[in-house]
């Protein structure tokens, strides 16, 4: 009987996909809306790693992939590839960020105050199991303060610079359209500052944490203090062709600035991302702090952590090992068998 090659493979992959999707069942706009309402921090994490801000698309990605985070980020990034570039928004100054949460570990109090904002930092991590028995968990009402916290605050680093404790980076006045874009140009090392910051913004949270944690534990040279952590909203300022500058809306952003002592001054590490993701920002900023002066070829240099915190690449490569590798395997076996045969023939006693 003739060998029918193709259909077997195609049919198998078709059914395998159906099997996966069967578990999630029908995906409706209602489900997407529910995810959007219920999982804002997950959505933020996914938007940050995808470097694409769209809460509906992020919720859809999560619905479609059943919450498989790497798949969700990949599907968003693939989407991002296809979208046209309309414009590059103007840069946002620290003082213009509409700030929900702003804390500094460097001082007890700071100009603008320590604003705790929304956080679980001081909560007791106890599962509300009653919910599973049918008793809904209703969070206690927030009691507003007498005066609202200021929505805009000066940066801590500005005060430190005035007091000659830190040298702030020179103001970069590159026009928005001229800012190097890591998704449009090859990444080469030593990396352009813009490429580094963008890579950290898109970094996979677990990867950034693993490497950042290693640096914090002493594998890096610098010990970080959180100079400033912010969860805020940024206006996307765009220009109309007739010259008017206006806000196209606000996106959530988070950022962390860490410092360590270097001689008589502080040195800075910085990272920011779309959406609110504190663990990633602090870890990534720590990596940034440690990269200056890291030895070439070492695990704390930029080239190392930028490559290895790229989630789409790392997870893709990880799972690619599931692909058939039998040809390369056969090639290795051939070399091994031949070498073994040689060794045996050399061991034969001479006459």
């Amino acid at each position: 009987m003739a060998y029918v090659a193709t259909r077997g493979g195609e049919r198998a992959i078709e059914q395998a996909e159906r099997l996966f999707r069967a578990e999630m069942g029908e995906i409706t706009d209602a489900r997407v809306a529910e995810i959007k309402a219920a999982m804002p921090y997950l959505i933020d994490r996914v938007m940050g790693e995808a470097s694409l801000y769209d809460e509906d698309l992020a919720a859809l990605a999560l619905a479609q992939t059943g919450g498989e985070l790497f798949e969700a980020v990949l599907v968003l990034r693939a989407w991002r590839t296809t979208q046209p570039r309309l414009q590059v928004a103007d840069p946002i100054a620290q003082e213009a960020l509409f700030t929900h949460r702003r804390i500094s570990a460097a001082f007890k109090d700071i100009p603008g105050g320590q604003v705790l904002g929304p956080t679980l930092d001081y909560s007791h991590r106890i599962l509300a199991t009653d919910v599973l028995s049918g008793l809904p968990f209703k969070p206690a009402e927030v009691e507003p303060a007498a005066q609202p916290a200021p929505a805009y605050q000066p940066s801590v680093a500005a005060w430190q610079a005035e007091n000659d404790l830190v040298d702030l980076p020179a103001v970069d006045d590159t026009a928005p359209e001229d800012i190097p874009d890591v998704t449009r140009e090859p990444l080469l090392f030593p990396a352009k500052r813009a490429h580094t910051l963008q890579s950290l913004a898109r970094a996979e949270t677990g990867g950034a944490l693993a490497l950042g944690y290693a640096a914090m534990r002493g594998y890096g040279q610098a010990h970080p203090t959180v100079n400033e952590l912010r969860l805020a909203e940024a206006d996307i300022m765009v220009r109309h062709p007739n010259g008017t500058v206006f806000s196209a809306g606000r996106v959530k952003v988070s950022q962390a600035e860490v410092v360590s002592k270097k001689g008589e001054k502080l040195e800075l590490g910085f990272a920011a991302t779309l959406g609110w993701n504190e663990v990633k920002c602090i870890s990534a900023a720590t990596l940034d702090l440690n990269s200056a002066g890291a030895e070439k070829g070492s695990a704390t240099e930029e080239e190392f952590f930028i490559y290895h915190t790229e989630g789409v690449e790392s997870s893709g490569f990880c799972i690619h090992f599931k692909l058939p590798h039998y040809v390369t395997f056969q090639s290795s076996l051939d070399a091994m068998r031949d070498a073994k045969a040689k060794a045996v023939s050399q061991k034969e006693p001479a006459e």
Partner: protein
Amino acid sequence: MSLATLTKDWAPMSYGFLDASAKREIRRKMLKAVAVPGCQMPYASREVPMARGWGTGGLQVSLTLMNPFKRVKVIDQGADDSVNAASIRRFLARVSGAPTTLDTLEADLIQSRHRIPEEKLREDQVLVLQVPNPEPLRPVQPNMSIARQMHADADYGRMWLQLYEQIVRSGRVMQGASYPSLVNGRHVMTPSPIPRWDVPKLHMAKHLTILSAGREKRIHAVPPFTRVEPLVFDDVPYKVEAHGDLTCNRSGAKGFFMNEIPQDDGSSTYEISDSEFGVKTIKQAEGAPVEFGETWYTDGEMSS
């Protein structure tokens, strides 16, 4: 004049999935790669609807080269029906409307993971090889920037040293697939994880070969009629896998690269890796009209 008349309808993707900027980037880097044979050109690799590490580099090259008339063949480990090859072939057809084929002779574009077909490719055909790791110096230098400088300096001493030590230790070069090769007498490249059997097919070939690593973001190329010389000592000749005497259990094809299939009793049988060549051999034996191209290997030996 209205927005509707001035603009195209919104569509979720461009022709061939990649947008114009992506295609331009890849075209330019391919041209650069062809201009400096064997030299890795960094490119801004885009995310595509497939996981990284699964052929996104090859896919981006194919998507850039595709048009509605280009017939495309996709293989993985030599087989068209391998699950990943089937998935890629489906995607290419879906986003370009192009026809597909299993027959090497009919293809204009062949995207392949880790094999070169047994039938010789012609000057009107392009071979796109998927590359996991484009850096042949990786075993002696894991840092990409340092390795890049080494290529610029033609600093390949450590590479040769590795081969020397393999011979000292094991009596032969132990490199299996991905045999490092000197291209156009200047740059050492990895030919991608094709077996040693396939590397001689690249030397002075009539066809163009593009090698693309999506995750590592590098493209390199072997233009037609370019020297590709595996790194070997003058007095220790290059050895391909010992498949010249093997026969395919299913088709009877003899003297081509085989897949080893372990059997229950501890022995092995062999199946030709270029599965469509095997299919054609079976069809011919059944009396169907089948056309074979000239093969690089005859009677299990590379013909010069």
